[in-house]
């Protein structure tokens, strides 16, 4: 639901940019229309990748949640069931896919068989191409995530603590967020070149906003009673920060980090779609232009796995760091 709302919002934003371009003196209607034509497929390609990633993230969880009822007896069985459900779902998808292929609804270059995709995967893993492109993308993703999260933490803290900074920066940040990254990604390429830097910047920009919001919410949500407590103990600013604000905001920060981890992948791929000479986004574009659909699918799935692993890593760190939360809810 929210995904679709987001989708709608983004398209509206694109339309707005188009409208602005139309009424802008220097740009003729034809130019802006061309721009729009270039942008739309770019948008939808990114959308599809992102949507797929999100779906696959949500998929095993939404299926297993009903199984995670209070555990009374038959524990091992339940646990086994929970492990098997995602696999079962995956098997079903593969089965459906195979059926579509066998029925020959679409020609093989549109929907290749799972076997063809697997074969392709083995080839590109074997000749090292997948690793080359995946590691390029991963480097951009990690760097973008790091830069974006760090910037959001610093700025978010400042905004949460100072109403002046809030008044000055918030409108700018919201304006930046309302513009789709894909729309100004070409600009970033012009400024930062088609190498790693522009991918990092795209990733950082996409990660920045949700992380910023979570930081502000997290710091503002520190209970005032606990602030009073620290004050009554004559805690210094630094002590209040490190002993109260950081741990109190941690749960919200982690949910921001988990969202950011998957968004960073989208960011890097956006950069690669617009212009790059390596990376999974580049590989997808290349494969598509050669009608190598199996390779497109392999690359997309690699992105999915990458995003899923990053999300899983963030969740793992979260579970370690917030062990007190699960302890508290035990009985």
């Amino acid at each position: 639901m929210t995904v679709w709302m987001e989708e709608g919002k983004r398209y509206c934003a694109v339309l707005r940019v188009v409208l602005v371009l139309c009424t802008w003196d220097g740009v003729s209607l034809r130019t802006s229309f061309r721009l729009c034509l270039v942008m739309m497929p770019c948008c939808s390609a990114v959308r599809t990748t992102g949507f797929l990633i999100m779906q696959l993230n949500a998929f095993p969880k939404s299926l297993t949640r009903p199984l995670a009822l209070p555990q009374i007896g038959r524990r091992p069985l339940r646990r086994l069931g929970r492990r098997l459900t995602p696999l079962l779902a995956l098997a079903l998808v593969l089965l459906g896919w195979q059926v579509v292929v066998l029925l020959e609804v679409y020609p093989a270059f549109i929907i290749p068989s799972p076997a063809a995709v697997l074969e392709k995967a083995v080839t590109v893993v074997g000749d090292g191409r997948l690793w080359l492109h995946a590691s390029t993308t991963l480097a951009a993703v990690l760097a973008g995530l790091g830069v974006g999260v760090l910037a959001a933490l610093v700025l978010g803290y400042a905004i949460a603590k100072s109403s002046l900074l809030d008044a000055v920066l918030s409108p700018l940040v919201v304006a930046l967020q309302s513009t789709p990254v894909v729309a100004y990604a070409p600009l970033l390429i012009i400024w930062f070149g088609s190498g790693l830097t522009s991918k990092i910047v795209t990733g950082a920009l996409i990660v920045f906003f949700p992380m910023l919001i979570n930081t502000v919410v997290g710091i503002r949500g520190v209970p005032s009673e606990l602030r009073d407590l620290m004050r009554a103990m004559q805690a210094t600013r630094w002590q209040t920060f490190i002993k109260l604000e950081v741990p109190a905001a941690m749960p919200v920060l982690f949910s921001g980090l988990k969202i950011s981890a998957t968004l960073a992948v989208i960011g890097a791929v956006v950069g690669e779609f617009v212009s790059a000479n390596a990376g999974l986004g580049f590989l997808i574009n290349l494969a598509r232009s050669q009608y190598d659909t199996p390779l497109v699918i392999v690359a997309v799935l690699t992105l999915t796995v990458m995003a899923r692993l990053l999300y899983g890593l963030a969740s793992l760190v979260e579970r370690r760091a917030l062990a007190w939360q699960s302890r508290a809810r035990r009985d």
Partner: protein
Amino acid sequence: MSARITVSDLAAVYQMPGGDTLPALGPVSFHIEAGSFVCILGPSGCGKSTLIRLLAGIQRPSRGQAFLNDQSITQPARRVGLMFQDANLMPWRTVLDNLVLPLEVAGVPKSERLAAARALLPALGLADFEAAYPGELSGGMAQRVALGRVLIQKPDALLLDEPFGALDAMTRERISLDLLDMWERQRQTVLMVTHDIHEAVLLADRVLVFSRRPGRIAADIRVSLPRPRRLEDTYGALFGQIAGQVRAAISQA
């Protein structure tokens, strides 16, 4: 070891959003001797919590002054322990880590602060719970941790704002008797807000009854029950008489 508290012509006025002012407390003047246990009773909203916050130095008065041993209170002080109706524990810290927080903030070395906390645990009835998280505690236990966190700084004065207000009657009685026990040994000055007449008379040397907002002292009743006090004392005639006196003062306030 314990401190005198002097309140002179103290008043608090809140600024309301519309520009109106809301007189919340006083002006009040009173004096609390070092080492005595004083309870404050009064109708809801008469400024009791406000008074506690003023004495703790986390809020400034609109008028007048308060003193701790002749020293004007202008900011929080480590010699004053503060406790509220909610335990306000840090959910990410274990019982032990919550207990040592004030010492940690004060820069006491780790081994020392752990020793101090472990020495407190039995008296608080938390001996087996040092590694538990607040989410795993009952309301009464959480409040005991909060009490321990106040006592660990060995304060000269305790400011308690309905510390047991959220607990059921039985837990409340048990924990207030434990507080009494610990106070008998340390004899800090205690100023405690409560809604419970029974609790006030059982614990206090003196009960101050506040009037409706803005709160002023409507009655100042001495509790001449001998110490150390026990639960059985509450069945005596003298207890009943004093409790009746307090009740009458409240209904007139």
